[in-house]
C-alpha cells in the first residue's frame, strides 16, 4: 500500500528505496528506544502526538548551548553573529524542505496552533461580516477554535465540510460549499485521527477557482511524505517541529510572499520592527514582521537538525517504510475479533484509530501500557470529529520511521490481553 496522493510521495512498485532503509540501524539513532517500561521494551506508537528525537537533534541543541549560544539579530559580537547566520540558515533549510520560492516566506512560530492563529488575525482581521471560512469535520481543535474566535470578533460565517463513511473528505460537498463569499479554506492535509490524506492539490485548485485562499495544516503530513508548497499552490502551509523528530516549541508558517507582505503584524514587540517611536512604529518586512521577541533559538537549530536528518534518510524511503507498516498493522489488527478500525480511506497515512467492542479506549491504554506499548487514547483534540463518528473516544496507534512490524505484533498481542482481562 502506498501513501499516494497528488502531493505526498507515491512509491512505485519498482522503487528500490526501501533497500537502503534499515530500520534497526535507524533505531540506534533514537536513544529513548532503549528504554524499558515496567520491565518491557518501550513500543512507542504515539508519534502522531509527538515523535521521539534522534541523537542528531539532541546533540545539535546541547552542543549549541555548550559551545555557541547567544541571542540572535542583536549582538555585534562573534557568537551572536555566527548563531544569527545559523539561525537564518535553518530558514533556508525549511524553505528547501517545503520547496518554497524564497526563505522570506518562512515564518517561525511556536507550533501549528500559533501559525493558524497568526493567519486568523493578520489575514482574518481583513475579512468582513458574512465572509466565509471553510473548515472540515476532521480538523484538530487548532484549526477550529481560531476560526470560531474570528467569527465571534467579526461575524464571518464558518462552514464545515462533512466526511464520508470511510473517513475521506466529501469533495463533492466541498465543491458545492464554495461561493463568491468564500475567502479562506482552512484544512488539514492529513487527519490526525483517521489518517485520511486529503487531495490537497484539487482542494486548492477548486478554492482558487472560486477566488478563495487555502491554509493547510500540515502537522501530520510533512512527517509522512514530501510536501511541495509550490506544486500544491498552497497560500499558507503550517507544520510543527516536534512531530518531525525535532524539538517542541518551534513551528513553521509558510505564506506566499505576496500575501505576507500585505499582512499586518500578529504580535508586537522587539525584532519585528524597523523603527519605533512613541508617535509611530514601522514594521520589518516578512518574515521578521511576524516574529516578535527573542525567538526559540535553540529549537530552531534543533528543527534544522531534524530536517537534515529526515532529508538524509529520504522522504521516499520513510514513506515506503510507513506504508508497509500501515498495511501490516491494518491486516494484523483486523484479525482481532471485535476490533473496529475507524478511518479506512484509500489514501491514508500511518495512523490507525480503533476500538474494541465493549471496552473503553481508556482501559485499553492503561492495560497495554503495562506491556510497554504507548498509544494515544481519547478524543485526540478533535471532539467535533468524535461526535460525527458517534464515539466518545478512540485508541490510536500512529507510526514513525523507527517502528517495526515486530512492534505491531507486540501491540496485537497486548490487545489480545485486554480482551482476555475483560473476558
Amino acid at each position, binding site marked *: 500500500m502506498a501513501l499516494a496522493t497528488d502531493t505526498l510521495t507515491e512509491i512505485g512498485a519498482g522503487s528500490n528505496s526501501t533497500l537502503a532503509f534499515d530500520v534497526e540501524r535507524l533505531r540506534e539513532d533514537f536513544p529513548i528506544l532503549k528504554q524499558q517500561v*515496567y520491565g518491557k521494551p518501550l513500543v512507542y506508537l504515539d508519534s502522531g502526538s509527538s515523535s521521539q528525537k534522534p541523537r542528531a537533534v539532541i546533540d545539535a541543541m546541547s552542543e549549541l548551548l555548550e559551545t555557541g549560544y547567544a541571542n540572535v539579530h542583536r549582538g555585534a559580537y562573534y557568537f551572536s553573529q555566527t548563531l544569527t547566520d545559523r539561525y537564518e540558515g535553518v530558514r533556508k533549510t525549511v524553505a528547501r524542505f517545503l520547496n518554497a520560492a524564497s526563505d522570506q516566506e518562512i515564518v517561525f512560530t511556536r507550533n501549528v496552533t500559533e501559525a493558524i492563529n497568526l493567519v486568523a488575525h493578520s489575514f482574518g482581521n481583513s475579512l468582513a461580516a458574512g465572509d466565509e471560512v471553510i473548515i472540515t469535520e476532521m480538523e484538530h481543535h487548532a484549526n477550529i477554535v481560531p476560526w470560531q474566535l474570528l467569527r465571534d470578533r467579526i461575524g464571518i460565517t464558518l462552514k464545515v465540510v462533512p466526511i464520508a463513511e470511510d473517513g475521506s473528505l466529501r469533495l463533492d460537498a466541498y465543491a458545492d460549499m464554495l461561493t463568491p463569499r468564500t475567502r479562506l479554506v482552512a484544512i488539514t492535509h492529513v487527519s490526525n485521527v483517521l489518517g485520511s490524506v486529503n487531495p490537497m492539490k484539487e482542494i486548492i485548485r477548486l478554492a482558487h477557482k472560486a477566488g478563495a485562499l487555502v491554509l493547510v495544516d500540515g502537522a501530520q503530513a510533512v512527517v509522512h511524505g514530501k510536501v511541495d508548497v509550490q506544486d500544491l499552490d498552497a497560500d499558507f502551509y503550517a507544520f510543527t517541529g516536534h512531530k518531525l523528530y525535532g524539538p517542541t516549541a518551534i513551528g513553521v508558517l509558510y505564506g506566499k510572499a505576496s500575501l505576507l507582505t500585505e499582512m499586518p503584524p500578529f504580535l508586537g514587540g522587539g525584532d519585528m520592527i524597523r523603527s519605533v517611536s512613541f508617535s509611530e512604529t514601522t514594521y520589518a518586512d516578512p518574515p521578521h514582521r511576524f516574529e516578535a521577541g527573542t525567538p526559540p533559538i535553540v529549537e530552531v537549530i534543533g528543527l534544522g537538525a531534524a530536517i537534515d536528518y529526515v532529508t538524509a534518510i529520504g522522504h521516499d524511503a520513510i514513506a515506503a517504510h510507513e506504508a508497509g507498516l500501515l498495511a501490516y498493522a491494518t491486516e494484523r489488527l483486523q484479525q482481532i475479533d471485535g476490533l473496529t478500525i475507524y478511518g479506512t480511506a484509500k489514501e491514508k497515512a500511518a495512523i490507525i484509530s480503533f476500538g474494541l467492542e*465493549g*471496552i*473503553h*479506549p*481508556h*482501559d485499553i491504554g*492503561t*492495560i497495554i501500557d*503495562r506491556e510497554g506499548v504507548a498509544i494515544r*487514547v*481519547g*478524543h485526540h483534540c478533535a*471532539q467535533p470529529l*468524535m461526535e460525527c463518528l458517534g464515539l*466518545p*473516544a478512540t485508541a490510536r496507534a500512529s507510526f514513525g520511521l523507527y517502528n517495526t512490524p515486530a512492534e505491531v505484533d507486540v501491540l496485537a498481542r497486548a490487545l489480545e*490481553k485486554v480482551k*482476555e*482481562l*475483560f*473476558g
Partner: protein
Amino acid sequence: MQDVLRDLYQEVILDHGKHPRNHRHPPAANRSARGYNPLCGDQVTVYLETDADGHISDVAFEGRGCAISIASASMMTEVLRGKTETEAQQLFDDFHRLCTEGGFTTEQAGTEDREALERLQVLAGVREFPVRVKCATLAWHAMTSALAGGDETTTE
C-alpha cells in the same frame, strides 16, 4: 497477566462496568450534576432525590466512560442511599483517601459506614494508576456538586 492489572480490573469492577446498577434518570430527582473528564471525554450525570429530612432517598446516574468510571458510579449509587449530605461527603472523603493514599485502611476512616467503604475497597487498585484516580472519583465529584447545588464539575 500482571497482578496490578488484575487488582485494578477485578471481577466486581468489570461486572459493574458492563452492567451498571441504577443507570437511569429518576423522575423524582431534585438534584443533579454532570461530571466531565476532559482528558478522556468521559461524562456521567448523577441524579439525587433528597427527602425533607435531607436524606438521600434515591440516587442514580447516566453516562458513558471507561470501566473504572462507570463501575465507580454504579457502586456509589449502591452505598449512598439513606445517607445525609454530611455522611455522603464523609464517605467520599474516605473513598478519595482509599484511592490515593497507599497506607490508608478502613480503620482510619471517618465514616461510620465501614461496610460501605469495604465494598468500595475494590476500587483501591487505582492507587497504582494515578491518571485513573480521576475516573474512579468522577461520579463522586458530580454527586458532591449536585448536593452543593452546582450542575457541572470537571476533573481537570
